[in-house]
């Protein structure tokens, strides 16, 4: 429930929540803290590595910085440190006082381990955690899977997980458990990425050479996350090699990549810089040059995108660490007509984050970060002395503090605060001429202040029962409009035995910023709009439950999850909405409710020469927009499905290590056809005298209810092979065959006008189905020197 009254009540709640663990710690004075860091062979931290004490049947997973902390009774123990892809390490320990240890794990000689790594999620860890509805994916895994045009895309790989739908053929858009694409919180090293796509959604902005891993939260959102309703996509960048200077890269069908990384000041830190650029434009320019003398010459527009990533870290001392993350990406589209008309369109994100990590004690870590995130597009037209430009942007300045406190081995407490200033450049327009005849501009800009406080406790009540409770207080202010919301989060896990556990969770989320788009696709001209005036914050709640079973001596994990999610103040737009440079944009919105439910079945195998997963989702998504103000509502106020509603979705992913050099992969996807809107009727318009001759031959379609027509089912098989070459196996050739059996999946359907070739007269109308990609083989060369 949104409330506008004093925040003092909530500060009191947080104070109580943070104070509670002090009592718990006082009851366990004889325990000692074992803490430290887990690193890999190149000095890189290993988030998710497990540190276990088998004698006590306890353990923990390293956090996102590779750090761990365990509170143990005094005594002699055997520690087991493990991370898939690395040799397991065993060490004897006599714990008589608080100790800090670092573990360096050697890379496993078994190449397959790299193939199957899934970070924190060894199957047993996954069984034991309270968290559900989360998918962890390492870039090593994504790099082995076949990819469109050979471009490894971590967001598209996530689409192979249950409960996640794509927006359409080749799209990087994620639609999670009935939520729309703008309801995903996409984070790059904890900083929001407003447009995670290149080329209208065909590729994500994440360069596979720079990314370490991604976590997708579909439910049970931890309290540190908020601001979007549907999911959290938490992308972490690699830190770089701490011991050697290394160059890696690849040459692919449409782009090339180059990465350079190495130590700073003898291993006190490390850095990584990575860049990527496509080269469509080189080919199109060559084609244009070859054709420019032809009579019917029509130049192909220039298009390319590039992105650059930087990450650096440096240890200021034993207890202090600095991290710097930077991202710059741009899509560039340009066109010059023979008529002297110049058109330029650029868009992209700029992101910077500086984070200071301080270790107060082995039990208390604090991260303090400042960041900036900017997304903008600029479109300019020029003709002789005249210029016309439009643009939009959103820029955030954020400060945040996040603390982790482990008072005992039964509690993991997280708390933090964040404050973001948003600048919404909703629309900017300027037109000028050299002689001053034309000179005007318009600009609609809003500001917003977004704040949150949170606290959570993961409490291990017993070996069987683990509970997690969290509370997030959020507030948003734009002009004189202000809102606050309390977001409870709760999760529980009950272990029936060593191989079976049951889980439940609940989360409430608010979303204070809204994507203004009149399209089902991700367009660069989509703009963000704050909650203000009649545009209330969107809200959703989700409850989910499930069971996990370890099968086949721990080789397989079978998980079944059911969920129900319901939301209100969902936004859409009236037909013909005026979305650009409109100071009364809030009047173009319409508001409704949504609900979604489904069952996700997931079988994973992570060890052995053959690994992979099978996922099946049975799901329903609904929306309802009643008539409001002077608007008729959507579909007359009746319930309807969004276009991304898919009843059935099946994915099968298989990775097989044939030998030390050759890995083979295959992925298959089947899903119910997406929904679309087709015109039922048509009429003709002849317009005023002098507009056209006779009745305009272009029919005007009459659209009835939205999304009433279902496209044919979508299915596709992709095949891949990675062959390592070179004496050190530091190079590889990666073959991808997208859509191996050349299935003509429907991208969209339209009604075509048929004409007589001789007279040009309209002779009839026919339905056409358009497919986007046939079978597409691609070969990529990758190296590491």
């Amino acid at each position, binding site marked *: 429930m949104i409330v506008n009254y004093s925040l003092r009540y909530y500060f009191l709640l947080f104070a109580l929540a943070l104070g509670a663990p002090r009592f718990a710690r006082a009851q366990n004075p004889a325990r000692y803290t074992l803490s430290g860091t887990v690193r890999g062979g190149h000095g890189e931290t290993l988030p998710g590595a497990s540190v276990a004490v088998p004698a006590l049947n306890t353990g923990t997973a390293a956090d996102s910085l590779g750090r761990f902390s365990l509170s143990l009774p005094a005594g002699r123990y055997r520690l087991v440190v493990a991370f898939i892809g690395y040799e397991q390490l065993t060490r004897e320990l006599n714990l008589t006082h608080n100790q800090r240890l670092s573990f360096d794990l050697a890379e496993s000689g078994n190449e397959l381990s790299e193939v199957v790594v899934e970070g924190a999620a060894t199957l047993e860890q996954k069984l034991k955690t309270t968290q559900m509805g989360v998918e962890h994916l390492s870039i090593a895994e994504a790099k082995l899977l076949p990819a469109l045009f050979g471009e490894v895309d971590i967001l598209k790989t996530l689409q192979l997980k249950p409960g996640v739908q794509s927006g*359409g053929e080749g799209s990087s858009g994620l639609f999670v458990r009935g939520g729309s694409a703008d309801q995903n919180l996409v984070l790059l090293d904890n900083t929001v990425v407003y447009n995670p796509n290149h080329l*209208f959604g065909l590729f994500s902005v994440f360069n596979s050479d720079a990314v370490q891993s991604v976590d997708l939260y579909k439910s049970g959102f931890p309290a540190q996350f908020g601001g979007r309703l549907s999911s959290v996509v938490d992308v972490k960048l690699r830190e770089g090699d701490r011991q050697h200077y290394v160059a890696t890269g690849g040459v692919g069908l449409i782009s090339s990549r180059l990465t350079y990384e190495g130590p700073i000041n003898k291993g006190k830190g490390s850095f990584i810089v990575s860049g990527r650029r496509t080269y469509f434009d080189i080919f199109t320019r060559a084609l244009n040059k070859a054709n420019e003398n032809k009579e019917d010459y029509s130049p192909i527009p220039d298009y390319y995108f590039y992105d650059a990533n930087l990450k650096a870290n440096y240890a200021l001392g034993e207890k202090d660490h600095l991290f710097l993350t930077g991202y710059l990406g741009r899509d560039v589209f340009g066109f010059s007509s023979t*008529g*002297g*008309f110049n058109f330029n369109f650029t868009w992209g994100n700029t992101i910077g984050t500086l984070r200071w990590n301080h270790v107060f004690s082995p039990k208390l870590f604090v991260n303090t970060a400042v960041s900036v995130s900017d997304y903008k597009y600029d479109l300019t037209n020029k*003709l002789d002395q005249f210029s016309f430009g439009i643009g939009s942007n959103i820029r955030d300045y954020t400060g945040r503090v996040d603390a982790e406190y482990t008072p005992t081995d039964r509690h993991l407490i997280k708390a933090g605060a964040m404050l973001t200033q948003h600048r919404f450049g909703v629309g900017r*327009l300027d037109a000028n*001429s050299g002689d001053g*005849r034309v000179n*005007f501009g318009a600009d609609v800009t809003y500001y917003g202040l977004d704040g949150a406080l949170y606290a959570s406790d993961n409490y291990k009540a017993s070996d069987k029962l683990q509970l997690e409770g969290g509370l997030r207080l959020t507030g948003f202010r734009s002009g004189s409009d202000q809102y606050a919301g309390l977001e409870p989060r709760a999760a529980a896990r009950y272990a029936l035995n060593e191989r079976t556990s049951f889980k439940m969770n609940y989360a409430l989320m608010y979303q204070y910023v809204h994507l203004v788009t*009149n*399209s*089902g696709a991700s*367009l660069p001209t989509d703009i963000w709009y704050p909650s203000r005036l009649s545009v209330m914050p969107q809200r959703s709640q989700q409850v989910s439950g499930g069971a996990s079973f370890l099968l086949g001596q721990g080789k397989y994990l079978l998980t079944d999850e059911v969920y129900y999610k319901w939301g209100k103040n969902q936004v859409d737009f009236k*037909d*013909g909405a*005026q979305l650009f*440079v*409109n100071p009364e944009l809030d009047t173009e919105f319409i508001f409704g409710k949504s609900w979604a439910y489904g069952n996700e079945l997931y079988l994973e195998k992570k060890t052995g020469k053959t690994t992979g997963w099978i996922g099946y989702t049975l799901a329903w998504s609904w929306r309802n927009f009643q008539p409001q103000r002077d608007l008729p509502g959507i579909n007359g106020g009746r319930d309807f499905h969004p276009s991304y509603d898919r009843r059935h979705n099946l994915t099968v992913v298989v990775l097989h290590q044939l030998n030390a050099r050759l890995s083979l992969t295959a992925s298959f996807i089947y899903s119910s056809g997406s929904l679309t809107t*087709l*015109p*039922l*009727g*048509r*009429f*003709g*318009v*002849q*317009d*005023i*005298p*002098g*507009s056209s*001759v*006779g*009745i305009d031959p*272009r*029919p*005007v*379609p009459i*659209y009835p209810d939205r999304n009433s027509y279902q496209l044919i089912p979508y299915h596709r098989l992709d095949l891949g092979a990675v062959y390592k070459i070179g004496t050190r196996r530091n190079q590889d050739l990666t073959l991808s065959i997208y859509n191996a059996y*050349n299935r003509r999946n429907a*991208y969209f*359907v*339209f*009604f075509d006008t048929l004409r007589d070739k001789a007279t040009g*007269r*309209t002779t*009839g*109308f026919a*339905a*056409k*189905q*358009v*497919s*986007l990609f*046939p*079978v597409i*083989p691609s*070969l990529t060369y990758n190296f590491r020197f």
Partner: protein
Amino acid sequence: MLVLLALAGCGKLQNDINVPLPTYNADLVVECYLEPGKVPSLAVTTSVPYLSAVLPQVPTDVTVTLTMPNGTQVRLPFNPNYKALVDTTSGVKFHSHIGTTPLVAKSGDVFKLDVVDTKGRHATATTTMLAPITIDSVNYKFNDKTGTERKAYFLTNFRDPPALDDCYRLQLHKGNPAKGALLKSPEVDMSVEDRLLNGQNITLGTSYRFYPGDTVTATLYHIERAFYRFRQSVRDARQANGNPFANPSAVYGNVEGGIGIFAVLSATTTQKILR
């Protein structure tokens, strides 16, 4: 690899499919543009299922009544010029109903239209004649090229009245008006509103598209918001068919009980011969 590349190129990415469409109930479609000094006429057709026959359906049982500003009701008899439906050369528009005497109209006059058929379908509409807006000037400028590449852009300048919510439509016709150039498709046809330029000078320009010796006739219509919105929504609806990035859009006119538009045209014109 070559085999795979060859396979990639084979087959069409666009195929005919059979789409079973549910039953569609036709609506009356009314299009009426009154012009001062001309005999009132209008086209009444019906919408049809999308995949049905090409030619528009012209109902023969429709009664049309035009109410003049002074309250006089004028029946427009059914008298269709069917030839215009298939004529692609003369530029004559189709009408199903036409009056007998030229229209007298001045700024501020309100007209009403009533269309009813024997099946109980009843459409009504109201429109107001707006004050014509004078074209202050027209200009052109040639590029630096020679021969067939030498082309000019064309500028039309006018001033928007102080009150907000004015909409305009500008047509540029190329050719000799005496030879029927103004009945043919225009070289440029654009609609603008004064939302961002209220009360200011407005300049509308073209790309380099006119040749030396061209006669350009600029016609500036001062149109009602309903007509502007009708044209925008017709454009949006057309673009949505075949565009996977567009959302389907309804068509908004000012005809209650049917589809279409009723307007009085208020225009000013000027001519320029490009030297």
